[in-house]
């Protein structure tokens, strides 16, 4: 007796396919719920400070920033550039912010904006030449660049060396908490929108078959540079903002954490759905905070976890949940 899985759309999904969906409250709720609930939840959390406690508020803050880094990574992945160096964007943004704020005494808002832009351009210039090589070299180089900067700052003691640089605070608590989450949602929806346009088709096509796109008259290098630039700017924003939040930047902004956690989030969440990496971030970052007791062995745990995820849930958690939400599964006799 052999069985196979049969997956059919749920009744309610089938009913939602056309305009009659608007007739029933239940159907409207079915459609609206997955879209609005997470956004609502994210926007509410900063207000619940007394319930959640300060420690978890900080975790929420970290999560939003790592979610931004995950989105940045996923954008690079969708054009086929596998980067292990999000820490480069994060650290560059943080240090530029420190330079603008501490050395040049710019006000906080201006310094964050300037740092995002400068960090974006700086990192793009560093990374773009490597993107012309085969994938493996790009990956290794992106892995090494943050390590290099970490060691350089540690050894040459420029930019504050091991002491770090301090920055002015943001001030308003609500501003502090809302900016990362609002920006994260903006980036998320903005990039989803981008990927839905014709540009998005070209970006994904470059990942699949670069030569075919080149033969169709498209300047692939320009697209790659643009994607790297956007990705780097978003990442740098995250770094610049975090630097101001903690009022301090040190070499640790280039640490592997900021490269590996976004990667884990993206792979867990499932690629090509930017929402998945955000979901992954909200699952993984709290867990990672709990794992701090293990010290630097965390990275080993992540890698093991990564491999497990790749083996067991290759489609990613976002697709998995989507599938469960929209379809019923049954075992059927053959």
């Amino acid at each position, binding site marked *: 007796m052999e069985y196979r899985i049969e997956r059919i759309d749920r009744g309610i999904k089938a009913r939602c396919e056309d305009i009659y969906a608007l007739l029933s409250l239940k159907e409207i709720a079915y459609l609206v719920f997955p879209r609005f609930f997470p956004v609502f939840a994210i926007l509410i959390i900063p207000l619940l400070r007394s319930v959640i406690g300060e420690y978890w508020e900080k975790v929420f803050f970290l999560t939003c920033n790592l979610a931004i880094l995950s989105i940045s990574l996923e954008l690079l992945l969708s054009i086929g550039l596998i980067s292990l160096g999000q820490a480069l964007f994060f650290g560059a943004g943080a240090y530029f912010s420190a330079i603008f704020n501490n050395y040049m005494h710019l006000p906080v808002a201006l310094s964050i904006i300037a740092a995002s832009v400068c960090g974006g351009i700086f990192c793009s210039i560093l990374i773009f*030449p490597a993107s012309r090589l085969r994938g493996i070299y790009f990956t290794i180089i992106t892995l090494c*660049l943050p390590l*290099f900067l970490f060691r350089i700052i540690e050894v040459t003691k420029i930019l504050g060396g091991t002491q770090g640089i301090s920055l002015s605070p943001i001030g308003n608590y609500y501003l502090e908490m809302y900016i990362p989450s609002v920006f994260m949602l903006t980036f998320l929806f903005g990039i989803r929108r981008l990927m839905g346009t014709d540009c998005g088709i070209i970006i994904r096509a470059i990942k699949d078959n670069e030569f075919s796109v080149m033969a169709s008259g498209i300047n692939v290098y320009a697209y790659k540079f643009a994607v790297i630039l956007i990705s780097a700017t978003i990442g740098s924003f995250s770094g610049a903002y975090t630097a101001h939040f903690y009022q301090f930047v040190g070499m640790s902004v280039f640490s592997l954490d900021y490269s590996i956690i976004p990667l884990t989030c993206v792979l867990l969440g499932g690629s090509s759905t930017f929402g998945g990496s955000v979901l992954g971030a909200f699952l993984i970052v709290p867990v990672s905070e709990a794992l701090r007791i293990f*010290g630097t062995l965390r990275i080993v745990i992540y890698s093991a976890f990564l491999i497990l995820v790749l083996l067991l849930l290759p489609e990613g958690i976002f697709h998995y949940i989507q599938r469960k939400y929209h379809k019923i599964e049954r075992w059927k006799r053959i």
Partner: protein
Amino acid sequence: MLLLIIYGIINSSIILLQTIGFGLTFSISGIPNLSYGALYILGGILSWTFLKHGFPLWLSILLSCAVVASSGFFIYWIFLYRIRGAVLLEVIVSFALGIAIIEFLRWKGFVTYEFSLPALLKGSTELFGIPVDFQRILIVLSSFFLIILLYLFSHYTKLGLALRGVAQNEQTALSVGINSDLVSSVSMMIGSGICAFSASLILPLGIISMETAYDVLLVSICVSVVGGLGSILGMLLASLIFGFIKTAISIYLSSKWMMLIYFISILFVLMIRPSGLFGKLKQIEERI
């Protein structure tokens, strides 16, 4: 001036010795052995351990090379063999292994001044009026002989030719009956063994510290990229260039700026000539 030349050669040999193992594995089997730095430190620590147990120094070094070489071999068969071809996984897994080893050693406590390897040859002499210690001369001679040995090995022995065959065209090599997995694991073995050997020779010049592991990895990658992957001549030339730059900087500035030089040179090479000095990478190639 003489100081520059002599110590330039010495530093170049040190860099070359540190890079050969990594470059070998990478150019032959395409495996980026990112646990290279960890294996380097492991080699040093194992030599120290064997020494502590009473073995003579030369035997300790030999044993540590054997252990690290076989670790390289086993790393391939346990971890990398299943994921050959999955670029991302190869990089992550080898890097994670490296970190695991480094952090394990750090946790075990190998981080103070007590841990240093004695030099194989003690004492020093004068070369054209410049004081040079014997250990450094040994390093120069070793790297020299190693390069010659590698050249002879890869051009004249059966195994060596097999390694080159796989390096040039893996599929053809497979079709002629060369076992690509075996060749890759052997290349990892040789690379790791050389790595431990170089660690045992070079670490006596300083102390054993975990940061060295990261440094060695970064330097090896830099030299391989600048020299061009797949080319022994490129590695040689790049080591010479960096060695002389390092010496010059140590004399006139301070050696701490060397990391910055490595960083800038990688970026520079990628912008101007991505395949490196003598690299054999073809950038755009239609593959049907």
